[in-house]
């Protein structure tokens, strides 16, 4: 399976309840003593596009191997798209939306 490069979207209690109610709690993983996280995968190409579109973000190659420092508003949009589509494979659509402006 090709390597993926995740964007971690951490879920507060309110969002967890909403995801649970919508039957989407299965999309979540648990990390760090019970923190709920939506792990949205990117391919290498998607990762590179995200880093170009959002230059403040960084790929942490040293420790977490994830895309970090994305602004909250950006992650909120990815989260909303994942909930709308009921899937984590949303990065192509998200990137197209951003590129369209």
């Amino acid at each position: 399976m090709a390597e993926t490069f995740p964007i971690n979207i951490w879920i507060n209690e309110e969002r967890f309840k909403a995801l649970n109610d919508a039957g989407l709690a299965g999309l979540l993983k648990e990390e760090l003593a019970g923190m709920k996280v939506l792990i949205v995968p990117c391919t290498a190409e998607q990762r590179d596009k995200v880093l170009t579109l959002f230059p403040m973000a960084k790929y942490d190659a040293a420790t977490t191997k994830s895309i970090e420092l994305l602004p909250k508003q950006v992650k909120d949009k990815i989260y909303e798209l994942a909930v709308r589509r009921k899937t984590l494979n949303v990065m192509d659509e998200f990137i197209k939306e951003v590129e369209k402006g």
Partner: protein
Amino acid sequence: MQLIGHGGKPLVERVITDKAEAKKKIAGLKKVPASRQMATEAIGIAYGFFSPIEGFMKKADVEATCKKMELADGTIWSIPIVYDISDKEIADYGIKQGESVLLTFDGNPLAIFDIEEIYTYSKDEIAEKVYGTKEEKHPGVARTYAYKDKFLGGKITLVNEPKVREPFGPYFLTPRQHRAKFQEKKWQRIVAHQTRNVPHSGHEWLMKHAYIAAHGDMPVEQMEAPGGATSGILVNCIVGEKRAGDYIDEAIVLTQDELRKSGYFREDIHMVTMTFWDMRYAGPREAVHHSIIRTNLGLTHHMFGRDHAGVGTYYHSYQAHHLLMSIPKEKLNITPIYVLEWAYCPHCGEVTCIGLCGHTKELQKFSGTKIRSIIMDEVKPTRMIFRPEVFDVVMDSAKKFGFGSPFVTKEYLAKAAPAFRVDPL
């Protein structure tokens, strides 16, 4: 009273506190404006943080530091402390070897600089020897290649003590003041926790491990009664140049202090101070440099975790430990305490050391990056990994000092006041 610092030498204290004397000494000197970094290091030199060096390094010391990790006289030294200057500035300010100038900061007198030497030095060699790489994406290497044409070497005498702004004021202590505090607390063993981070509970457990290790073979009942401690943890926060995405220094200092204020460390065993220093991310060599600074502050022990002062993947996890282990004990008079990571084990239901827990496949490692990510998403972490009081101070610091963010942003870099100012004499 003469204090002894690194290398077994008298602690450097080159500060004129009498204003009248200072004004007399600086009269007629050419004024040379110092950058924030040079001003910070001049202050550090004068107060003895970098003892035994008494000024910005001359060529012989830079060469010995690079090639042998020692000063020209054989004292262990790992990172050159240099004053760089352009040929144009030398001409514009009329700087001459053998003369003294007055360094200014924000237009006000700061320190007398006796220019004993003007020299050049290979930036390639500094990069290679100090950082182990010439790649410019290493921040320390980038800093090196940004040095100007020449270096000035010579003694520094502070003539105007800095005023440290809030909230940092209470946390800035000189080496002499640190030692006075340790005496007041009756601490015999003091272990440094060096940090540029807001603490999660993994950090907290590292400190607890280091405290117990440093207390070592001293009677355990000394730890028992509140107020009776003979060992202490000094959390010494590095305050200096920031990069976007770092925690703001205000959040770092205040959250570290909050651990004691909220009782996660007993009042008599924990203290927070700060040292002005621009991180070089030199990994092993910076671990040695930090050891030197903390020796000068009067500490007996220094904690080193994984990849101390590293960046990216330039240094392997325990390279700093190996370098420290290679230094003869008599040349570095502070005892390293090497600590392994702590992680959360869902099976144990607790934070545990990775060297102790047998549930290796289940361990959830702390990651500063992940916790940063959680905070940026404005989600309150679980109390097992992040104390709620610390989270509240992070959010409060964001509002009070960070222009809405606990992390360094372009706005913070542009608008935050420098940590210290220098007033007119």
